[in-house]
């Protein structure tokens, strides 16, 4: 059945290019967009249900908070998307984020100016990403294990640098968290703007540059990508550097969000990022997925949290159960939507 469909498709439409831009003779939906579409549908459904059930739910303030409160997770998820698209995984992002907050907090306390501390924190993330990339590509250690080790390493460094939580009072960081009111309850912070900028840069990189094409190609099949002459080695290392840098940047946004450097931050955040990426339609085997999907995934997770807070009656354990159940419903719905297409 699949072969029939394929020959029919080949006759009717030209082959879609490797970039995200697809040219067609007739407006039909590319099946690769289907998982993301599923995400959008469920997101809208949740908004409807929330809006009808709770007062003030669909207000500008709540929706703006959704973006503001999750800007750091958006950046981290974008970085994670790059890694997962190549078929890898990065478990260290939570710990690297914490390390970034600890490094910047430590440097501020010791009198370093913002224009040194901020790049230093991001650089730390990039360095760890580079080390992971080397471990994965040169030493052929599996990404799961390499990034697990990086997670222990980053977390260990956090405990050494900041055994107690360090408050951040640096004006630059504080400014990153200021709320700009846009009227009607809507607002945005510089962190939110940075997060959106990162998404745009990532989108352009993945869909309109050779690097992005190589990322997708590696996910589709590393051997074939190499045979095609694509710079596989460099790209594989670079995606981990990107993920580490995004985690470092996310750490700065988180420092602005929480104005402190704390070694226990970000525990389990990597699972949130992975969940967001998968909910957004990216396959963990690599080669297929969209950055915008990951952003939607983060919004879905944030929405789940908002609904639970608005509900106001869930005890700790019911919170966990409801999160798990919503995740389940989501994943099944998405799977059914994709499967029906075939």
């Amino acid at each position, binding site marked *: 059945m699949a072969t029939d469909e394929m020959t029919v498709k080949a006759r009717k439409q030209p082959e879609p290019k490797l970039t995200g831009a697809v040219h067609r003779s007739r407006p039909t939906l590319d099946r690769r967009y289907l998982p993301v579409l599923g995400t959008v549908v469920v997101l809208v459904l949740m908004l409807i249900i929330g809006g009808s059930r709770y007062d003030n739910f*669909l207000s500008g303030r709540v929706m703006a908070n959704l973006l503001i409160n999750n800007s750091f997770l958006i950046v981290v998820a974008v970085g994670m998307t790059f890694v997962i698209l190549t078929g890898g995984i990065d478990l260290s992002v939570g710990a690297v984020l914490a390390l970034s907050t600890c490094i910047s907090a430590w440097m501020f306390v010791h009198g370093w100016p913002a224009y040194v501390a901020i790049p230093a924190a991001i650089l730390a993330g990039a360095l760890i990403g580079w080390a992971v990339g080397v471990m994965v590509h040169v030493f052929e250690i599996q990404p799961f294990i390499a990034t697990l080790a990086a997670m222990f390493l980053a977390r260990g460094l956090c405990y050494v640098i900041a055994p107690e939580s360090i408050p951040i009072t640096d004006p630059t960081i504080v400014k990153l968290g200021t709320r700009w009111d846009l009227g009607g309850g809507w607002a945005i912070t510089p962190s939110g703007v940075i997060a959106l900028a990162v998404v745009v840069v990532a989108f352009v990189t993945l869909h309109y540059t050779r690097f992005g094409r190589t990322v997708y190609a590696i996910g589709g099949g590393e051997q074939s990508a190499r045979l095609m002459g694509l710079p596989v080695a460099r790209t594989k290392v670079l995606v981990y550097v990107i993920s580490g840098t995004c985690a470092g940047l996310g750490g700065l946004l988180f420092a602005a969000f929480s104005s*402190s450097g704390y070694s226990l931050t970000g525990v389990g955040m990597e699972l949130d990022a992975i969940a967001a990426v998968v909910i957004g339609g990216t396959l963990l085997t690599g080669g297929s997925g969209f950055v915008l999907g990951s952003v939607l995934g983060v919004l879905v997770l944030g929405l789940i949290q908002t609904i639970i807070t*608005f509900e106001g009656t869930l005890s700790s354990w019911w919170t966990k159960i409801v999160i798990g159940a919503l995740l389940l419903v989501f994943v099944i719905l998405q799977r059914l939507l994709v499967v029906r297409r075939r």
Partner: protein
Amino acid sequence: MVSKKIRTQAVAAGIAVLALGLTACSSGDDKTADPGSTSSEGSSGGDAISVGFSQVGAESGWRAANTKSIQDTLTKDAGFDLKFSDAQQKQENQIQAIRSYIAQGVQYIAFSPVVETGWDAVLQEAKAANIPVILTDRAVDTADTSLYVTFIGSDFVEEGKRVGQWVSDNLGTEPINVVELQGTTGSAPAIDRKQGFEDATKDNANIKIIASQTGDFTRDGGKKVMEGFLQANPDIDVVYAHNDDMGLGAIEAIEAAGKKPGVDIKIVTIDGVKDGMTALADGKINYIVECNPLLGPDLAKIIKTLHDGGTVEPRIVTQDGAFDQEQAKAALPDRQY
């Protein structure tokens, strides 16, 4: 092929309809989204005081008792509309919850901060919205104390000091080796209780802390670390555990090594949960300093006072008792948690 096209168009149309419906809803609700107003539907049927509470998590029996106390006291019958959220021990969840409470327009916000630092921004927002903030159990580290009305909770450093003082007075008359089971690395109670104990015992030359590791506040952690301590150090006299659970784990490890807890190796802990008090009454633990989790009644009283226009002290220290073995036997039947 036709069905494909229709399916696509149907999906697109569906989304458009939903989106339209969304904007209609949001524009309708925007008017009521004024954070300054204290009215939120259903809750303030005139009398009920709406309170938003963000709890750290449910990481221990102590925390569960704390939650239960608050939920059992701030009920609808008592005149409260309690919105409760569990932060799963993540600071970002607490910040989101507080922002959400501000958006929902609650009248009071109370929370136990999972970490001491980083609350200035969100507390400023609460202040701007005229919502009084009450801190329970743990404090925040901020220069601007006007950001919260009061902090009610135990003094962790004081708890550590009291334990240290008792050890110094009762056991420190001869040279003793002490091993320490710490709480979760980086958490305020662990840091403070360690500090307090060290402050109280540093002047007593007989007391030597020979090993100190983290048991993560859990029973299993305490047992694991104690086993290691027993292997590495043949002469342990006293175990100082930052909470009862780790002490209970240590009891198991000591018994497995063929020694008698409370007799061969003395144990001192903090918290005073029921299992700990039982062990104390049985003679397996030697001294417990209480850390009272039942903050519900005090919280309700504070809110009611503020609501009636009164003022409260900026720092309310909960009364913590302390028990040795005899006192535990007497107090055990009345223990609520």
